[in-house]
């Protein structure tokens, strides 16, 4: 059962199509990465999902309901859209107490979430003096305030130091392990690769892939073969339904298959294999290929 459901969502700003007929689902108990380069339409999609912007067409719902119709939104959905939504003159405690007052959340939660995100010692300081990493933590504290079942975080790792990134990854994993739905956007796949179970990849407002990280990683396996006539080997592999790329006159790279299949296909065509190796392309290259229409991944 999906908790977040985006269906044929379109958002147009004048001539610019920011989100183009986008559909995907996000499931509970998992961390879902919402990935795409800057300007892909991730933040626009999240803003519509959170009722901050209206869609031109389509819908985005949480538990089957539009955010604006949720009876008690902060207890159901916690969101951190960016790290700069604070009055610089208020302290972290004051900022969270304002939100808690509006949502009817007991003030003791303020101390609890500040503790949880590691800001207890800076709670009384004015936010204007906070570093980017501290603001990220405060944004997250705001999202956790209502102890919600759904968390929507836009680029939560931005500005965090390595220790902070490790901490955030652990927190996201533990929140998902508690059965919560966690949607995390990022423009860097490697940044979230250790954290996410599923990925929704977006480019130019369109869905490129909606799959598991494991499946995405499977596509990153490359088998490289050196032979006497690479062009012929490429034709043979293509005929066998294997995706190939010609590296040079003697070398081809096959993707999404294994060495056995390449070796057997070459033998069947009477082509000698001079060298056969398998390696994993790094996820960032795969992500880059994906968003540049170089490769297709089945949904």
């Amino acid at each position: 059962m999906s908790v977040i459901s985006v269906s044929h969502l379109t958002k147009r700003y004048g001539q610019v199509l920011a989100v183009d007929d986008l559909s995907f689902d996000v499931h509970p108990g998992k961390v879902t990465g919402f990935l795409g380069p800057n300007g892909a339409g991730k933040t626009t999609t999240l803003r519509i999902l959170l009722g901050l912007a209206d869609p031109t067409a389509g819908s985005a719902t949480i538990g089957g309901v539009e955010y604006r119709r949720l009876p008690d939104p902060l207890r159901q959905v916690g969101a951190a859209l960016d790290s700069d939504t604070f009055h610089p003159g208020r302290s972290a405690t004051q900022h969270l107490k304002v939100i808690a007052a509006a949502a009817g959340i007991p003030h003791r939660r303020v101390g609890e979430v500040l503790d949880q995100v590691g800001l207890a010692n800076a709670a009384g300081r004015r936010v204007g003096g906070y570093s980017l990493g501290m603001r990220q933590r405060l944004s997250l504290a705001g999202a956790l305030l209502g102890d919600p079942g759904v968390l929507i975080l836009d680029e939560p790792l931005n500005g965090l130091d390595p220790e902070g990134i490790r901490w955030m990854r652990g927190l996201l994993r533990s929140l998902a392990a508690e059965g919560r739905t966690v949607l995390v956007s990022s423009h860097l796949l490697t940044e979230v690769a250790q954290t996410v179970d599923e990925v929704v990849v977006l480019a130019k407002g369109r869905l490129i892939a909606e799959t598991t990280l494991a499946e995405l990683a499977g596509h990153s396996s490359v088998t490289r073969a050196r032979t006497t006539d690479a062009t012929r080997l490429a034709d043979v592999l293509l005929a066998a339904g294997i995706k190939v790329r010609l590296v040079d006159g003697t070398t081809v790279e096959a993707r999404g298959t294994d060495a056995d299949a390449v070796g057997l296909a070459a033998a069947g065509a009477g082509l000698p294999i001079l060298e056969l190796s398998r390696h994993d392309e790094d996820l960032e290259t795969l992500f880059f290929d994906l968003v540049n229409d170089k490769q297709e991944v089945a949904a």
Partner: protein
Amino acid sequence: MNATVRLARAEFRKLFTTRAVPLSTAIAAVVTVASVLIDAAVAGKPGQHALGSTLETYAMLKIGVVAVVVMLILGILAAGGEFRHRTIVPTLLATPQRARVFAVKVAVIALFGAVFGAVIFGLGLGTVTGVLAAHGIHYLPAEVGRMYIGTVIASACFGMIGVALGALTRNTVGAIVAAIAWALFVEEITLNTVAPSLEKWLPVGASTGLTNPPGPGVLAPVTAGAILAGYAVVMLVAASRTTIRRDVG
């Protein structure tokens, strides 16, 4: 606790957790007391009315404008500041019902404006009473009570006009500059010279009908109150429509 009461508590908390309110209250208090004392010091000098005369006491009590200007700025900061600092995002995430958020903010600023007007005028009146008593004068002219109530109403109205301006422009600095430019250059300088009979019908001109003693070129208090409230309502309707419709983020 119902959602409207919760929102009102959040709005009051916003008001009292930045420096704007204590700072502007302090400035308004100093300006008010200083203005009364300066008026008292020059009273009786050539060209000035004698201390204790009705006209001089009225002149000393033309302090409503201080509360009005400060409330205009605080109203702009309360609404425009949400966009400037992007706190509108957590505000609308906590309460996605935008019309309710806007209405409660307007009500809270109006209430705060009324109290603010009462405090500032009260401070001025206390200073005037003290100065007069020190000179053995124990008499206040008849219209003082009406000016007190007028200042309370005008402060509430200008707080609401400020919220409307802040929400419409989404820019605190631009809105404050535009509002002051309007009051000074459009109403006070240009219209006062070109078409003096028209000025009293405009917002700042109308407010003097509430805060100042009766006189030529000043609207009767009830008319002035109705005109000012009318401006506030029209601007609030326009601002609420854009607040409800426009994207945020």
